[in-house]
């Protein structure tokens, strides 16, 4: 005969077996939610990295002018840096500098060389002579590019792209001289202008719209069961537009008086006044002391 186990048969499934139903559906959902968040974050980070790698080699033409970028370049630049945080933008500038280019992504020129190879440099500012790092001097090709690049940076959203909600922060502006050219190539702007024009045409139709609204309101009133000459339930005549002044009286305001048995009320704990004979308790304590002395040996 086969030996029989005296142990209880375990019905608990071994953990980690794939394909089994999770213990709690909620746990699964929570885990999935967080996993998705991390996944989204990784995707955004990869996107930023890709954009930086592309923007490192920008602009596409070697003789491009940072003041008047080509529409395609400007459009790509604006789209690419939407998910950027200011720190990512700094990283882009840093990478471009390592590649010996001006920090502004739409400028093809090499960065400016400092006068000497010393680590710290003297520069004349309006506050007098200042000593700055050589690195700080060798970021841009000119002050103009610095202005244009920083104009973009201040518009970037501090919040990381995977935390952003809603469509704010997707309207970055570039500081360019040929703004008109660029706007024509941007479908977004065009749409808006069209919308504005449309509203002007609509002005004639506004009166008709109001009339239609009144008709609809009457229909609704009948639906509510009101009679034509009655005061409507949804009437705004209940709110009067006459202002009545409140005349102040000369009598000084009376301070509230305490209820008669004020002592009890101060003793109350959430409305309940505990009945407690304090004196009796104190007597008891004295007794206790003596009791204790009685128990002492000797």
């Amino acid at each position, binding site marked *: 005969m086969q030996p029989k186990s005296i142990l209880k048969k375990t019905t608990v499934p071994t953990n980690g077996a794939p394909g089994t139903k999770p213990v709690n559906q909620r746990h699964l959902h929570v885990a999935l939610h967080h996993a998705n968040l991390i996944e989204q974050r990784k995707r955004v*980070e*990869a996107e930023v990295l890709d954009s*930086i790698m592309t923007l490192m080699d920008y602009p596409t033409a070697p003789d491009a002018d940072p003041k008047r970028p080509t529409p395609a370049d400007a459009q790509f630049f604006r789209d690419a840096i939407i998910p950027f945080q200011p720190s990512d933008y700094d*990283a882009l500038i*840093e*990478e471009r500098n*390592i*590649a010996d280019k001006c920090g502004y992504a739409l400028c093809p020129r090499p960065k400016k060389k400092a006068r000497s190879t010393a680590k710290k440099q003297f520069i004349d500012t309006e506050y007098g002579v200042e000593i700055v790092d050589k690195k700080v001097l060798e970021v841009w090709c000119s002050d103009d590019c610095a202005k244009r690049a920083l104009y973009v940076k201040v518009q970037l959203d501090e919040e990381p792209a995977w935390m952003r909600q809603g469509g704010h922060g997707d309207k970055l502006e570039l500081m360019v001289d040929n703004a008109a050219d660029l706007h024509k190539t941007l479908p977004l702007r065009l749409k808006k202008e069209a919308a504005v024009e449309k509203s002007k045409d609509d002005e004639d139709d506004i009166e008709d719209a109001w009339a239609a609204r009144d008709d609809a309101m009457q229909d609704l009133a009948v639906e509510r069961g009101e009679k034509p000459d009655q005061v409507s339930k949804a009437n705004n005549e209940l709110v009067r537009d006459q202002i009545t002044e409140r005349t102040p009286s000369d009598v000084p305001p009376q301070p509230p008086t305490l209820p008669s048995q004020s002592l009890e009320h101060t003793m109350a704990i959430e409305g309940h006044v505990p009945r407690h004979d304090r004196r009796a308790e104190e007597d008891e304590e004295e007794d206790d002391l003596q009791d204790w002395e009685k128990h002492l040996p000797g």
Partner: protein
Amino acid sequence: MEDTKYNNSLIRMWRVWRTTKEMMNERGYLVVEDDMTISLEDFARRYAREDGEPDRSRLNFSCQPSEEMLVKYTPAPTKKDPNPQPAIGTIWVEFNSDENVGLKQLRDYMGHLLNGSFYSGIMVTVKPMTGMAIRLLRGATGMSDGPKGGVEVFVEQDLLVNITKHELVPKHVLLSAREKAQLLERYRLKETQLPRIQSTDPVAKFLGLRRGAVVKIIRKSETAGRYASYRWVI
């Protein structure tokens, strides 16, 4: 004094190069014994430029894995893959001389590894890389356009001394797939039940440990003489 004869940066580079050679040897690559114990005079004769600075472009070298290492890095055979190939190959070590290393240098280096059909690479830089380059490196191990074995980056400063020779650092030994299976069977463990070690741990970085590997750590013990523990690389 003998030291005054040589440039400070040359002495630094000599120490870095020796440590790098020792590192490759400890990982299991084939390294000539003389390279690990090269004297400063020999190093200066071979790799110094006229002005006494080290010539970093001449320091680059490649290493072949030893037989022992090939066995160690071969994954356990499965039904699908009865004859697995060792997950290790020729490595290319490059000493970058640029002051700042960014995405550009890293991408060039990866391209070079692919062109030379190296399995993996180590880049030794003068200063730490930029943040974006580190981000690229982190994502590169699973990428299709990088080398199969991945790229590791060390800063020269970290290689001035061989940390595994410090008396407080116990001996770390990487287990092969078979040894790992035996260990888990003997103690009836799952690998998740082992203590862990991060792959960013200095010794783990030094030995190039990969995620999922198990390392045996042998310490001195006052009571038992030697004490071995096992850690799972995460």
